[in-house]
């Protein structure tokens, strides 16, 4: 009788242990999956806040999503956006997270050094000058998200910038004169919503890249931030978005700006045009209202 009880207890103990192991595995898998899901969600939010990386889709010519090939005209020549799908041959499928972070932070591509110490620098049409401010956690999340988009086999096109501007080695000097790397720093004197807006505008949405005039080297004139540019992307002009009452958007009410970013509709009922309409359609319209309000808060008083 006693031995039967002992055997029963023994079996119960085995079942209990088995149950514990299964429960622990299940819990660990669930936590990992939930964390991955959360990371992807964050990555998509970051992706939308950048305007859906719409420059990497040749929308005009019916190009595939994020497969690059779109011509971006600059005063120095034409640059073609690159394939940022996870295709292993033509895209960024063979990159590691650190390669991606380095590209976003420093404007430098992966791979061996090309000429002594010289690495492959990207032309500043790629707005690493703003993306350098993106927080590391957001960059990692964005990287995870980009790995989930469908890979597209599409070769990158070489830039069409005549020398000497087309020599990448010049970018070392360009960066020295026009680029400051570093993550966004919050301003403790300002509110949380203002800081969130500043982070969105200056890091993720990279508004200054189109809406600020550039110097003769193509660097942003930081003393004229958001004052508009006659040489915006694709030869379009980008308007002054400072709170100036006559030359900027000072006459817009806050709700007008939030509405515009959400719907693409201007005050006169006309729809946003050119690249602005693309970044709204592909990106900003998906931002939560709290983020759109934060952008409005910052743009209404960026100082």
């Amino acid at each position, binding site marked *: 009788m006693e031995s039967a009880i002992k055997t029963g207890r023994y079996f119960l103990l085995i079942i209990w242990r088995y149950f514990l192991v299964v429960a622990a595995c299940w819990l660990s898998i669930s936590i990992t999956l939930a964390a991955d899901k959360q990371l992807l969600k964050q990555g998509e939010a970051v992706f939308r806040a950048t305007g859906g990386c719409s420059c990497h889709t040749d929308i005009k010519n019916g190009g595939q999503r994020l497969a690059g090939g779109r011509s971006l005209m600059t005063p120095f020549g034409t640059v073609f956006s690159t394939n940022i799908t996870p295709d292993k041959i033509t895209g960024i499928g063979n990159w590691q997270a650190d390669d991606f972070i380095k590209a976003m932070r420093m404007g430098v591509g992966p791979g061996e050094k090309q000429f002594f110490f010289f690495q492959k620098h990207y032309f500043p049409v790629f707005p690493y000058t703003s993306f350098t401010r993106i927080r590391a956690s957001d960059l990692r999340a964005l990287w995870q998200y980009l790995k989930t988009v469908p890979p597209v086999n599409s070769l990158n096109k070489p830039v069409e910038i005549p020398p000497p501007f087309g020599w990448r080695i010049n970018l070392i000097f360009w960066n020295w004169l026009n680029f400051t790397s570093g993550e966004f720093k919050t301003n403790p004197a300002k509110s949380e919503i203002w800081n969130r807006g500043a982070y969105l505008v200056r890091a993720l949405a990279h508004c200054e890249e189109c809406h600020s005039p550039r110097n003769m080297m193509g660097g942003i004139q930081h003393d004229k931030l958001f004052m508009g540019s006659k040489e915006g992307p694709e*030869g*379009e*002009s980008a308007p002054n978005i400072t709170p100036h009452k006559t030359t900027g958007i000072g006459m817009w009410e806050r*709700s*007008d700006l*939030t*509405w515009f970013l959400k*719907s*693409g*509709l201007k*005050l*006169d*009922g*006309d*729809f*946003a*045009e*050119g690249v602005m*309409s693309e970044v709204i*359609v592909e990106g900003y*319209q998906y931002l939560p209202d709290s983020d759109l309000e934060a952008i409005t808060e910052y743009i209404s008083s960026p100082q």
Partner: protein
Amino acid sequence: MKKNSLVIITMMLVIGFYNSSLFAQQDSAFLGYRQSLMKSLGSQMGAIGHILKSGLPLKQNIASHAQIITLNSKLLPAAFEKKITAGRTDARPAIWQQWSQFKSAAMATQREGQKLMEIAGSGSTNEFFAQMKNVGMTCSACHKGFRKPKPERFKR
């Protein structure tokens, strides 16, 4: 004989000038009509925007604005049928080179406007908003191909 010829030539010149000035006047009237029509479309979108963005208690008016959009967009092909590329116009020659695409684009606005009108009777704010964006996208798609880029537009 010489005198008669001179009179005939003068008369022909006068008639020619008169006709060309008449055509020019007509063209300018066409342009004015088109611009009024487009402005009206924009105004309706603006009016819907004011209702939605500020939560005005005028949701019942959205159906009427959508109806005007639908009706106005139906008038677009007739308004643009005559090819006028010179003068105070933002229309690109692509309109007449790709006439069937232009007509389809106008029809798309009409179709989406109609849907907005239908939703306006029963839909939620989110549904209005989503459909209004669809209408806006059709305007935008048409402008992309058929309206001159900003630097080439005439000063209003």
